[in-house]
């Protein structure tokens, strides 16, 4: 029987918009009604434009309205990206033809096509990307403005790669639009779920060992990468983690943990907590389950699925969104995926790199100790 309870993950349209708003210089237009606009506009807190369609536009065609908005935005932007929503997509109006005016990218990822990741990657495919083999830098992808770790991951990446002007990282999606035409070939991802597919993959920054490994893979490209320095930092950090985790385990049993979020992040957190705290992972609930996921991953895309896992396992600790938190308000909780409601979060928190792992362990232990 199909599970009909509320979906916990946004739609493809939202994913596309998230991707595009990270690119400076693009005017992003949602071609749809205000109801489709408000959610991405409020959750992303970025300037997004909208054609604000009403019924009459659907009957007579909304092309003129869209052209007018695109024309206005073209005066202040290098390029305008139009993200299509369900109803204009169904009536199948041709929106590619914007006539004379600014350069326009059309992303046809209406909500009914699928989930957030699919829309994010659909936007990646439509962007006019060029790889420049002579580019001395590295492309870091997987960065989505909707991600609660977005700002933190950007900062940690810059810290690791840019130290001492070692390498010129291009962050995707967190760079000027004009960078896209000459991207560096080597790629490191901060989130394999959102790997855009441009360039040659060198590894990820999820986890301390992975970070060191990925950096060494880049060593042959740039000889002034601070690999030794990072390795020393990595070793010291791992010792610190071992120390605090040992201390915790002196007084407590290893926690049982339910993890909810995107597949890549969740698998990373599961492995980390097993390794460092000997935690028993009751559930790796993925918001974006795919056919090739490791066997430990189960789909947790609806409220009833999550409720079932939490009722079944009653974990000591939950990593997830405020949906999970509100289903088990008494359980130790670490905000791990959006939405994160009901708490103030201002500072940049990374999940990747050395600081990301330190931050996660810190949050986990504090949440467990505060229980």
């Amino acid at each position, binding site marked *: *029987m*199909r599970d*009909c*309870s*509320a*979906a*916990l*993950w*946004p*739609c*493809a*349209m*939202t994913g596309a918009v998230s991707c595009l708003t990270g690119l400076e210089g693009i005017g992003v237009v949602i071609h*749809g*009604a*205000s*109801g*489709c606009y*408000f*959610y991405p506009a*409020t*959750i992303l807190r970025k300037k997004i434009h909208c054609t*604000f*369609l*009403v*019924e*009459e536009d*659907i009957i007579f065609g909304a092309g*003129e*309205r869209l052209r*007018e908005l695109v024309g206005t935005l073209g005066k202040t932007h290098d390029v305008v990206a139009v993200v299509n929503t*369900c*109803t204009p997509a*169904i*009536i199948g109006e041709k929106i590619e033809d914007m006539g004379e005016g600014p350069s326009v990218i059309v992303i046809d990822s209406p*909500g*009914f*096509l699928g*989930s957030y990741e699919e829309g994010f990657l659909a936007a990646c495919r439509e962007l006019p990307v060029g790889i420049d083999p002579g580019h001395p830098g590295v492309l870091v992808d997987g960065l989505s403005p909707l991600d609660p770790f977005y700002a933190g991951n950007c900062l940690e990446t810059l810290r690791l790669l840019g130290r001492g002007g070692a390498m010129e990282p291009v962050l995707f999606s967190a760079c000027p639009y004009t960078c896209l035409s000459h991207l560096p070939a080597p790629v490191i991802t901060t989130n394999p779920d959102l790997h855009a597919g441009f360039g040659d993959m060198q590894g990820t920054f999820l986890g301390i060992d992975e970070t060191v490994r990925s950096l060494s893979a880049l060593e042959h490209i740039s000889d002034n990468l601070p690999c030794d320095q990072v390795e020393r930092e990595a070793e010291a950090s791992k010792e610190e983690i071992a120390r605090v985790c040992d201390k915790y385990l002196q007084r407590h049993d290893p926690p049982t943990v339910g993890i909810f979020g995107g597949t890549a992040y969740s698998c990373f957190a599961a492995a980390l907590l097993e390794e460092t705290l000997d935690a028993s992972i009751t559930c790796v609930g993925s918001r974006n389950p795919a056919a090739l996921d490791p066997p430990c991953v189960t789909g947790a895309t609806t*409220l009833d699925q999550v409720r079932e896992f939490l009722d079944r396992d009653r974990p000591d600790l939950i990593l997830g969104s*405020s*949906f999970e938190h*509100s*289903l088990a*308000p008494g359980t130790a909780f670490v905000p791990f995926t959006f*939405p994160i*409601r*009901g708490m103030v979060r201002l500072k940049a928190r990374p999940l990747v790199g050395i600081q990301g792992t330190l931050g996660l362990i810190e949050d986990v232990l504090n949440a467990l100790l505060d229980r």
Partner: protein
Amino acid sequence: MKNWPTNSSRTEGCTLTGALSVSTSIADGLTIIHGPDGCVHHNASLLHALWHENEEGLFPRIYSTSMTEADVVFGGEERLVETLHAANRLHPGVICVLSSCVAAVIGDDVSTVCDTAGVQAVVITTGGFLGGGFSRGVSEALLALSSLGRKGEGNGTVNLIGEKNLEYEAEANYEEVNRLLALLGAKVQLRFVRKIPAHAISSLGSASLNILRDPSLTDVGRALEARFKTPYLSAFPVGLGGTLAFLQDVGEILGIESTDAINCEERYQKNLAVSFSDLDGSAITLDRGPVTSHVLIDELQESFGLVFTDQGIPVRLPDPLPVGTAGLSRLLHRWRRACRA
């Protein structure tokens, strides 16, 4: 742009959000959205955020028919039947069914599916943005749910119609109206619809007065009057004079002598003027917000000595306008804070 119609507000949000703001406030209810999962997530997440602010905890009970591209092409009515049966297995107090713009544009016939599926449901005409905007969604939800009301004789009580469930100060406004009604010795029978079980709606027709939250619900007030013969007042009270008039109107309709209540409220209002006497002569500049009320501005000048100029302290009238005397008092506290800052 040539004569685009101006009959609907382009920016007020989706009928789904409006209708859900009503239907999800039925504590034991379940709402089905016939549409793609994205619509459900957007709205559920929004309600979840607002409920969090209002400390109502959990998560609205919403089911999705999860329409996909294949359903768009071949029609999504079977999905709706399936979802109705799944919802029914939980035995909710009431099942409400809303349709998205996707369902509306491909022409899925939600009413007929619900009629024939053998599951009792209240169909709320929405159609996503194709059915209008947020406020239309609110009205349609109230109208549809009123079918659960039974006819009855006026029993001297009051129903509150269409409280703004997404409003941060909804409970405070309720308390203010309740306080005013208590001055007259009148009682609220039904909050239609806010935090009630579905069966409570059956009493809708037995109150002697319906008080609408604001005039945008006049259609609803009229429909209830036609069906249950219950007279209505078109808004919660705003302003000093407005609050006194409210007491008088309620008294008249319920056949209660209101002189004492009005005198009592007038004393409260005079005390308020004294307690804000420090504001006398303060120069303030009203930001052009979404709402304005000349009557209210005049009262603020006359009763509190506020001076409205172009170079004063910037303040704003909230949307919606403050309810009753207590609402005005809280507004003045905020303005006082702005004047002192």
